[in-house]
């Protein structure tokens, strides 16, 4: 069943229609269509090199596909300039942590608020009037996220000194600081131990439930995906091979073949 037709457009945050992405002669994605509904956790899975990260880059506008359409909030999205990408309220975390290592957790998270800060250079330098007010307001929002993610104790610690699991949490914090409508997580549990994974799962669920943020995530840990996601889309060799509830996808023959391989 084609999910896009079955769902009401109002509930749909993003609609990806027949997207094809090429790098020269290489087809990274071909004719992929699916949607992301408001308030859901949408997982994108697939074997290595299937095109998942490319898909995420298409979703946030970093790559513009050669063919196909991206509908975000009911509007067809044109090709975006880098600064426009930042302003469209889609935030993301990266597969390899991309924080500013020398900066503190707090400062890293404040960078997530940059798009909301409008005061000029002079005012910022003097830290007076609008600049001070703005910083206070934005700091409060960041502090609420610090409280949410339970990282009060490392607020002033340089990120480079933190263990990997905490860095991942800080990265999630920075993405949340931008108050995104759509949060993209690229392998949020990669390289974590079980305890860190459990913590991260709880935070992702809490973000989704308490803050109402729509989440699209790529993840390799199948257990995690099946527990977290409301719906799963499976990509293999740049093509969509399945889409649906975790249970449906788990038992789909195409998916089993893609993951386990078939004899030719």
């Amino acid at each position: 069943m084609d999910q896009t037709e079955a769902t009401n457009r109002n509930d749909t945050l993003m609609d990806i229609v027949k997207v094809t992405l090429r790098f020269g002669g290489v087809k990274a994605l071909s004719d992929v269509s699916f949607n992301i509904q408001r308030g859901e956790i949408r997982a994108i899975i697939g074997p290595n090199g299937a095109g998942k990260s490319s898909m995420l880059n298409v979703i946030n506008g970093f790559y513009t596909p050669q063919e196909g359409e991206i509908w975000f909030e009911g509007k067809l999205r044109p090709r975006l300039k880098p600064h426009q990408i930042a302003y469209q309220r889609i935030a993301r975390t990266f597969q390899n942590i991309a924080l500013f290592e020398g900066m503190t957790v707090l400062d890293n998270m404040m960078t997530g608020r940059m798009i909301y800060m409008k005061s000029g250079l002079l005012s910022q330098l003097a830290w007076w009037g609008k600049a001070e007010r703005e910083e206070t307001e934005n700091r409060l929002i960041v502090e609420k996220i610090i409280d949410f993610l339970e990282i009060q104790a490392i607020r002033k610690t340089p990120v480079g000194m933190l263990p990997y699991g905490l860095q991942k949490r800080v990265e999630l914090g920075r993405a949340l600081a931008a108050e995104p409508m759509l949060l993209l997580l690229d392998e949020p549990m990669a390289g974590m131990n079980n305890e860190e994974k459990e913590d991260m799962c709880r935070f992702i669920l809490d973000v989704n439930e308490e803050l109402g943020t729509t989440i699209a995530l790529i993840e390799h840990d199948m257990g995690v995906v099946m527990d977290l996601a409301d719906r799963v889309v499976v990509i293999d060799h740049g093509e969509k091979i399945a889409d649906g509830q975790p249970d449906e996808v788990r038992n789909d023959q195409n998916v089993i073949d893609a993951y386990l391989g078939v004899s030719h």
Partner: protein
Amino acid sequence: MTTAVSYTIPELLDRNAEKYGDQIANREKEFGIWQSWTWKEVQNQVEEIALGYLALGIKEGDHIAVLGRNRPKLYWSMVAAQRIGAVPVPIYQDAVGDEIGYVLGHCEAVLAIAGDQEQVDKILEQQDKCKSLEQIIYLDPRGLRNYDHSRLHSFASLHDAVDQNRKKYEKELQARQEKISPEKICVILYTSGTTGNPKGVVLSHVNIISASRDSSEFDSLSQKETVLAYLPMAWVGDFIFSIGQAYWNGFCVNCPESSQTMMHDLREIGPSYFFAPPRVFESLLTTCMIRIEDAGKIKRSMFQYFMKHARKVGVPIMTGEKISPTESLIYRIGEILVYGPLRNVLGLSRVRVGYTAGEAIGPEIFDFYRSIGINLKQLYGQTEASVFITSQPDGEVEADSVGVPGQGVELRIDDRGEIFYRSPGTFIEYYKNPEATKSTKDKDGWVATGDAGFIDESNGHLKIIDRAKDVGKMANGKLFAPKYVENKLKFFPDILETVVFGNNREYCTAMVNIDLVSVGNWAERNNVVYSSYQELAGHPEVYKIIQNYVRQVNEDLAGDEKLSGCIVKRFLVLHKELDADDGELTRTRKVRRGVIEDKYSDLVTALYDGSKEIHTTSEVTYEDGRKGFISATLKILDV
């Protein structure tokens, strides 16, 4: 001066709101900023909560359980309970489900106030053990959105319930307040106890307030003090400091942001009056020493030079003895270069009065703090006495005594050496346990402490030897005082916990728990590779280090005529940390000797039958209540 107490805690609140209305009563760090409430605001908040209780239908004499980390709202909830004639029962927040279930069931609480989802979960899990529990109020709504809210209320929703019929509840509150009197029950505190189920110690307003008043006078505490409330709310000490003394003097109580930020918050607040059990001082010192080892060569040698000097003259300076001008000058330079900055890093710059109690503190640790100019003292007390039995007056401080009896406290030592006391702070009874009350408190009000000790004739200071029931005899008739030896061993930072055996035996043996922070740091420095606590604990080099410590302690003991029988001949390093969740320690981290001797009976046998190693399997309880087993082969070393 021991005049009768004519106040209750809620009345003290009203007095403070009038007298110190605009002074800060509580602070809590939230969103990175210290939020504060004046006494007047606290009064309003407490009244609002009290009205909320009435709206929920709480009756006089009902018990209200309080569970969570130190937060102003939880303290207010307790005072609000007193305001309507109900009794607050704080419970250790880190207790596992069973323990919480027992206390809730035993005190028949009708309402529980929980800090967050974790506490709510534990309470819900134990529902069938406490049939009386009707409702739960939570503070932090996170994660509780999808719970069944028929009996669960958010703290904020109390307000709405009150507004529906405010006039009626205000009138009722007025009537209830008139009925409370100083003789009524102020709080029930469950003591963890080293044996058996916890007992509920019933304390009246008179108990709490007279103990708070007398101790405040003893140390001339004033309205200007600042304290940090970070110790468990269910512990009598916290109740006395953060409510009793705070309300009596009207000083400010600060609550840290979370347990992990405690050290940082301590530095920001800079308390003037500070209380900590020995283990807090120990871990402060350990982290501090580890950081010094990481420091540059110049800093390190500067630290070592001045600390050596401080060890020599610091304590005499503190006690007011005369020292030579050169020594005094060097100490003053040290003050600028090392002691002052060190106190600042520890967050103890402004401490005017510091106390340690609960366990014996190592003389080295004790002297370390005193030598850098912190007025650290010891006190001896227990829940049944509303804390204070004896405390050390300024200028009369020794590492091995616990001071003189407080105002109004009478002391008596029976012929077996057990200490008895009688004071205005003496508890009313153990809740629903008349036998225990009878065996502890006689009809004249004398209470048996269960500790053995003696009074030093030269200065009237009390000295504690051990728990009376733990003191025994070696097979050769010499005195066996396990805790004395354990404390000596525990004074080494690498040893976290230890249990010494030897009652009625030929010689003494010990089980040792290493301190992962301290030993882990050593391992890192010396390229010792390990993957788990168990592996590090069993490392031959670690055994050698511990062996060395045991030898040092033995040398000390050999010199003491009375205790020369307690020399430790064999020891082993345990493969797991002794844990309160496994019932091996009490919630205040005291060793449960009997439990350990039973649980590790195979190890005890091996310690005495001369075997070189033993294979053992033991049960562990994880934080979520699940159980598992770990097994290990432990070596046993002769000293």
